[in-house]
């Protein structure tokens, strides 16, 4: 006949929160005591119910006894270096849970990332499922700890260690340092210092994302604590009510472990298989950049460049999300925000021409169609600029490869916003032209517009996945999922351009792009191919000035109080002179005749 007091002995021993070996020793000794006591009472002729009651009554408060055992043995003292406050066993437990959670989050990332790469909007139920999944895992982990009779403080410590492990893994995997060296990095190739020194640069954006991450992790831990209290208590009560044997309790505990591991592995296998069989195009040079938070952020723009493995051609895929996760627009388009008026426009390229649209909330309002705007080339090279000529007039500048030639077609449309009619103001076929751009600004307090029409030539867009939050409220799930990608500084895409004249019919463009740790001089030829000529490390945030030196084919660059002469053909750099710090200056050159 089984010893009816053995579970009681086990319960007291496990409540002592000592090591497994010590608990077994205590349970063994107490079990012997209960046996002796009940044997004696049985000899006195007492019934089993009376024996049960007398044994428990004479033993004393089990919780108090367990606490006394704990006090005597004091497991924290075994590790004088770490000490009782930290505790070694929660650390080990937290590490085990951290491994399971890490596997789970990697699997989650694998299943979510393809949605970002494709143009398919994510269903709401999928978003909800992906958001809730981690909390379900935490809940059952808490239940597992509860069945182990792990104390509250140790439960919190276990989850804390698990969370720290996850954060550490996320920082390592998604740090800018890692991404930089995984991609083709001109800075890395040129030997410039890595961007890791920028990781420590905290901005308001990083602080905000960190706050969301902390809230998420707190909720994660809360789910675990709820699981520990609610589910484990229900299970144990159920077991004790039916007077289940100790072996069954052990089976329950072991089952949770095995079920958890099996589910995790099964999920991972399924998700990996799904991703392997997915037929989405190969994504080239994708990277999720920083999220630019403003005061109000309702939009998220995902800009990615996909390469079809079948044809090798590039396919542009853009998606504009509202903060609620709703897709506002997808396809080949660009979003332009005219800072002066705060209005946002979309230029969308379709087969029948270029559509000019206005973005208002969730609605995309068609303004006009420019049927003769032409289609983009196969390499996606085109540019469009929008600026206000007046409060009722919009200037749209299109720059695209001219059909049938290697030149570029500049088209300047003026749009009347009151009638939505457009007029082709001018059209020019030319080479790369000069360093120009569109701009508009308030002139005076009477809201007169001072407008300068210039040509700009951003021939190629940065081949990166850009997650750009424009303004408004936040989509928590997208923000959470983008968080790992926001902990490093983005590569600023601002640039200055300068032609290299005197080098032939097809002028090359030079541009300097500012990155988080420095600047880069790149040459772009008429076919759109780029190469890095020079890169250097600087902490200056302002882009350097660059001007071509007459017809010499060389450039002069003023950057961070140095004036340099650069020959892109030979990649020779010569410092001409130091420049005074804090002084503003302009560069120009001429040929004396």
């Amino acid at each position, binding site marked *: 006949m089984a*010893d009816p007091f053995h579970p009681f002995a086990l319960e*007291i021993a496990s409540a002592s929160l000592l090591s497994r070996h010590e608990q077994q020793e*205590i349970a*063994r*000794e*107490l*079990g*012997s*005591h209960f*046996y*002796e*006591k009940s*044997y004696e009472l049985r000899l006195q002729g007492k019934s089993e119910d009376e024996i049960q009651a007398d044994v428990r009554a*004479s*033993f*004393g*408060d*089990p919780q*108090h*006894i367990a606490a*006394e*055992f704990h*006090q*005597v*043995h004091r497991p924290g003292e075994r590790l004088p270096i770490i000490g009782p406050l930290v505790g070694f066993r929660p650390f080990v437990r937290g590490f085990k849970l951290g491994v399971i959670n890490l596997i789970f989050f990697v699997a989650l990332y694998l299943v979510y990332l393809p949605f970002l790469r494709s143009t398919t909007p994510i269903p709401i139920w999928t978003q909800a499922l992906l958001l809730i999944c981690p909390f379900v895992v935490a809940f059952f982990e808490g239940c597992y700890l509860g069945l182990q009779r792990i104390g509250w403080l140790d439960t919190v410590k276990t989850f804390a260690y698990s969370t720290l492990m996850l954060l550490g893994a996320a920082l390592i995997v998604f740090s800018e340092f890692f991404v930089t060296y995984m991609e083709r990095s001109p800075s890395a190739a040129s030997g410039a210092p890595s961007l890791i020194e920028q990781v420590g640069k905290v901005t308001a954006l990083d602080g905000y994302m960190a706050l969301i991450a902390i809230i998420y992790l707190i909720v994660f831990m809360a789910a675990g604590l709820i699981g520990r209290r609610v589910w484990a208590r229900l299970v144990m009560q159920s077991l004790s009510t039916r007077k289940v044997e100790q072996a069954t309790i052990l089976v329950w505990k072991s089952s949770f472990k095995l079920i958890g591991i099996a589910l995790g592995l099964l999920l991972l296998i399924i998700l990996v298989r799904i991703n392997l069989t997915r037929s989405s195009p190969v994504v080239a040079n994708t990277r999720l950049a920083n999220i630019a938070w403003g005061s109000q952020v309702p939009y998220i723009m995902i800009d990615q460049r996909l390469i079809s493995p079948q044809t090798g051609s590039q396919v542009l895929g853009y998606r504009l999300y509202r903060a609620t996760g709703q897709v506002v627009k997808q396809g080949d388009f660009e979003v332009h925000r005219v800072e002066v008026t705060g209005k946002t426009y979309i230029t969308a390229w379709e087969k029948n021409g270029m559509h000019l649209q206005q973005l208002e909330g969730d609605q995309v309002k068609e303004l006009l169609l420019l049927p003769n705007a032409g289609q983009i080339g196969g390499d996606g090279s085109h540019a469009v600029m929008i600026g206000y000529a007046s409060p009722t007039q919009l200037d749209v500048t299109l720059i695209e490869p001219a059909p049938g030639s290697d030149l570029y077609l500049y088209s300047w449309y003026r749009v009347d916003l009151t009638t939505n009619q457009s007029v082709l103001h001018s059209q020019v076929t030319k080479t790369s032209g000069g360093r120009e751009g569109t701009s508009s600004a308030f002139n005076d307090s009477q809201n007169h517009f001072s407008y300068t029409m210039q040509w700009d030539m951003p021939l190629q867009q940065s081949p990166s996945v850009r997650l750009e939050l424009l303004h408004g409220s936040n989509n928590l799930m997208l923000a959470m999922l983008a968080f790992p990608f926001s902990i490093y500084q983005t590569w600023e895409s601002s640039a200055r351009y300068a032609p290299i004249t005197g080098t032939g019919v097809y002028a090359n463009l030079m541009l300097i792009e500012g990155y988080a740790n420095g600047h880069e001089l790149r040459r772009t030829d008429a076919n759109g191919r780029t190469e890095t000529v020079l890169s250097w490390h600087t902490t200056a945030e302002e882009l350097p000035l660059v001007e071509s030196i007459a017809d010499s084919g060389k450039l002069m660059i003023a950057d961070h109080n140095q004036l340099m002469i650069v020959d892109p053909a030979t990649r020779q750099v010569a410092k001409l002179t130091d420049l005074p710090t804090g002084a503003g200056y302009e560069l120009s050159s001429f040929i004396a005749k």
Partner: protein
Amino acid sequence: MKFSKELIKGSTKNLILAVLKDGEMYGYQIIKSIADQSQEALQFGEGSIYPALHEMEKLGLLSSHWVPQEGKPDRKYYKLTPEGSQALAQGVKDWREFSHAVNHVLSLA
């Protein structure tokens, strides 16, 4: 007669050392021995004796070993170490001095 827990708790160590003076015993046997030798005057929560035994073993006052039993659970026997014997002697001395002092104060009350 039941004495207060605090009063008994302070004497638990000496009581255990005293009953073990005559030879090794297991936990339940120690409890019974204390009750018998005190003529049932000293009875406390039986469970609390086991943490005390563990503490005294940690302090080196006692040593223990398991003895298999046929048809029933093994018993864990405790016995005095030389340090335990010294502690017992000191404990007896301290108790006599203490009780003498208390008796003296109470007699004046």
